[in-house]
């Protein structure tokens, strides 16, 4: 018999696992409650388990997910990894960086290059920000996405030089147009191997027969502008490494990253383009994370640790205060239902639904990524949200649903459950969700219409399962389930 944990502890742990991951199964929740909140945060920050991806089976049954040429296959492969990962924060941080450093497979033709970028986020997304920004600047997908292969000595292309400042590190208002040009000059000569040929291939925009060509970073010193540059007040023959180091020293950099982290993990902020004109929701939270950044020599996990252990994150007011992104909705629901131990065609359907809700993984609409918040909600997307979650939970044979039924059977402990008890149990297991009385009343009425829940014999057990599944399907259509 497991230890009984207080409702507050359960609610807080479930909150952490929803935000720092994609929600937990009942077993995961129990395991984390045993080890306690802070230890769970540490385990999330330093995952020991490698992702055990059955690449051999993927190769056998889903060749396209192994080739990673077309976008849907790439996204399906990622959805599978998000659902199955033993290191949810590592995967969630990959999604976070994918949102901040938004790179789309559409322009890059092949999904493989974006998948490689995501691998880089997995390996380095919770380490030093300076290291990450440097790796990003050398990432072939980023290089081609923002045209750095066209950035030459004597003829700069400002695209990457601008976005690294505006969207990837400091935010508008903290540098000048001259800094952008100098930044671009510092990145001249940073390119992919054989750039002319690769550019033509990319412009021709065909996966066939060039899909297997792997882009690689190379630095061409002869194409690098070695003249003196002045960047954010620093003068010298600055190269890309110097620029990245200077950026990481700026106060604006952790402020901007901290606000992104807050927006992604704590509460919806206004859309990023409004940040220069609107103060953060919680300036002290940003200060705290900035302090952690400088104290730790730019360590992202130090910022995360400070955030997850802070009252502003743990407070009840923070729970269910963000609109679930489509990926959070889809992956969270698939994790709860279970049954995706091996990659199946369900992952393709999941990608289709994510796209229909407005978030095609690996295909952000632009370098500005997805704004999120209330922009996820419109009538078309709402139909998709409600139908998806409800449909996934319609199969009582799935292991996650069996576990939920088992938990309710334990609760019944040989007697019958009233409709009230059943509704409270379902809300607790799915969330725990706090719903208005009117919603609870509606659910109770619905549960009652399905009949009694007891597990006395085979017939009543079958009836109880039907009632539980029907109720779960309605619980996930609530407004509260749209929030995380």
């Amino acid at each position, binding site marked *: 018999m497991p230890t009984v944990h207080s409702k507050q502890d359960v609610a807080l742990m479930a909150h952490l696992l929803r935000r720092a991951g994609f929600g937990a199964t009942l077993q995961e929740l129990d395991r984390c409650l045993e080890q306690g909140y802070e230890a769970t945060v540490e385990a999330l920050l330093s995952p020991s388990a490698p992702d055990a991806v059955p690449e051999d089976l993927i190769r056998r049954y889903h060749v396209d997910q192994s080739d990673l040429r077309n976008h849907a296959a790439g996204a399906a492969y990622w959805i599978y990894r998000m659902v199955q990962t033993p290191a949810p924060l590592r995967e969630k941080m990959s999604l976070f960086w994918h949102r901040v450093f938004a790179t*789309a497979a*559409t*322009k890059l033709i092949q999904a493989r290059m974006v998948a490689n970028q995501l691998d880089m986020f997995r390996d380095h997304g919770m380490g030093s920000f300076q290291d990450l920004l440097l790796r990003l600047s050398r990432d072939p997908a980023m290089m081609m996405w923002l045209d750095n292969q066209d950035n030459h000595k004597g003829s700069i292309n400002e695209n990457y030089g601008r976005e690294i400042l505006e969207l990837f590190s400091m935010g508008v208002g903290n540098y000048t147009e001259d800094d952008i040009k100098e930044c671009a000059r510092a990145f001249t000569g940073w390119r992919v191997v054989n750039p002319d040929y690769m550019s033509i291939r990319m*412009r*021709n*925009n*065909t996966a*066939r027969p060039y899909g297997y060509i792997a882009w690689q970073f190379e630095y061409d010193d002869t194409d690098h502008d070695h003249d003196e540059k002045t960047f954010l007040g620093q003068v010298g023959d600055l190269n890309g490494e110097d620029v990245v180091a200077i950026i990481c020293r700026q106060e604006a950099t952790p402020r901007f990253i901290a606000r992104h982290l807050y927006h992604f993990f704590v509460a919806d902020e206004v*859309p990023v383009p409004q940040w220069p004109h609107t103060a953060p929701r919680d300036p002290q939270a940003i200060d705290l994370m900035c302090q952690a950044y400088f104290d730790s020599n730019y360590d992202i996990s130090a910022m995360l640790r400070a955030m997850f252990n802070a009252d502003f994150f743990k407070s009840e007011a923070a729970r269910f205060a963000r*609109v679930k992104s489509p990926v959070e909705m889809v992956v969270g629901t698939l994790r709860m239902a279970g049954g995706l131990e091996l990659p199946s065609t369900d992952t393709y359907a999941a990608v*289709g*639904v994510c*796209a*229909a809700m*407005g978030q*095609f993984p690996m*295909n952000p*609409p*632009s*370098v*500005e990524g997805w*704004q999120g918040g*209330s*922009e996820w*909600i*419109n*009538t*078309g*997307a*709402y*139909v*998709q949200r*409600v*139908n998806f979650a*409800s*449909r996934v939970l*319609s199969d009582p044979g799935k292991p996650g649903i069996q576990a939920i039924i088992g938990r309710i059977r334990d609760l019944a402990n040989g007697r019958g459950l009233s409709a009230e008890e059943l509704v409270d149990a379902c809300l607790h297991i799915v969330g725990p969700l706090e719903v*208005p009385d*009117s*919603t609870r*009343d*509606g*659910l109770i*009425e*619905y549960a009652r*219409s399905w009949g009694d829940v007891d597990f006395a014999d085979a017939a009543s057990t079958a009836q109880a399962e039907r009632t539980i599944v*029907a109720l779960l*399907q*309605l619980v996930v*259509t*609530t*407004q509260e389930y*749209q*929030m995380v």
Partner: protein
Amino acid sequence: MMGDEKNRKVVVVQLSGGNDYLNCVVPYNNPRYIDNRPNVRLSEDQIIPFDNGYGLNPSMQPVKDLYDEGKVAVIHGVGYPQPNRSHFRSMDIWHTAEPTKVGDKGWLGQAIREMTPDGDNVVIAVNFAAALPRALVTLGAPVASVTDLNSYGLLNHIDAAPQRSQALDAFRDMYSRALGNGPVMDYLSKTGLDALRGADILSAVPQKYASTVEYGSNPFAKSAKSAAQVLLADVGTRICYTQHGSFDTHTNEVALQARLWDDVAGGIRDLYTDLKTHDASDDVLIFVFSEFGRRVKDNGNGTDHGSGGVAFLIGDRVKGGHYSEYPSLDDDKLVEGDLAFNLDFRSVYSEILEDWMAVEAKPIVNGTYEKLGCLNLN
């Protein structure tokens, strides 16, 4: 009789992937066309004879028939400055009417906001695909996205009718009673209820429909038929959004484009005929566009991404004919090997928005663009 301007509708036909302008309205006798298209060329004996020295793609006979009735405006050389050859970005530019920066509001989404400021008309715009094109997205603008009218609705995976209706009743009840619990909950509740209301209205549409027109069996024909059903049911829908593709014909272009135009031209003809036989064609305008045309020089078996393209406006109220000019194929007139645009697409949008939909265009297209005058509104 033409309905008043508050009752006019537009059906958008998006040719996704980049429709090859040169093999759609074909300058078949132009030596520059012949030189540049050694492999991917339509010759005089293949094209449908058209006017002004052009031919039409052999699959476009239904469009030619409508043209002969004076119902088709061929709008040449449509594009925008500094053409972008990424599908995504170029489509985005068309969708948001923002060529220079990344826009966050769709041009039709903004029109929807004008036409139903409170969002009361939840079926004012119907998109016939699962994913919402950005053209229709603007915060607060209701849009229904329908893949299949017959099964459209909330909780449509619940097969048993009594159980589904019971679940929907519970949903409606919970959502109505949750109003008044703060702005976020209210927004969610209202959106959920709007979705439900829209689904109620649209799922009843097929029962009201009877027609002798037999549509094809391809996906575009299905969308065209659905659009006809929604428009004929007269439920207040003013925008129908359809798309077909992929027109991204890097390889095997001639066969591929022919098949796609078979679908599109046939679907448009059937939609028009259906509306006409129900005496409902007078206030419907069909707008056909693609995100860009394709490279002038072929690549051996297909063509790569280009810029300037062709758009069509089709309907009873269209003054048929050619508008704007076919861009020159001369080498010194090409932009990086592509046809130069000579008409900004926002001119076409301005005409559709203001003259047809009675919505002020300037704030949506961010400027004043000369209209073509291809609508007959008397």
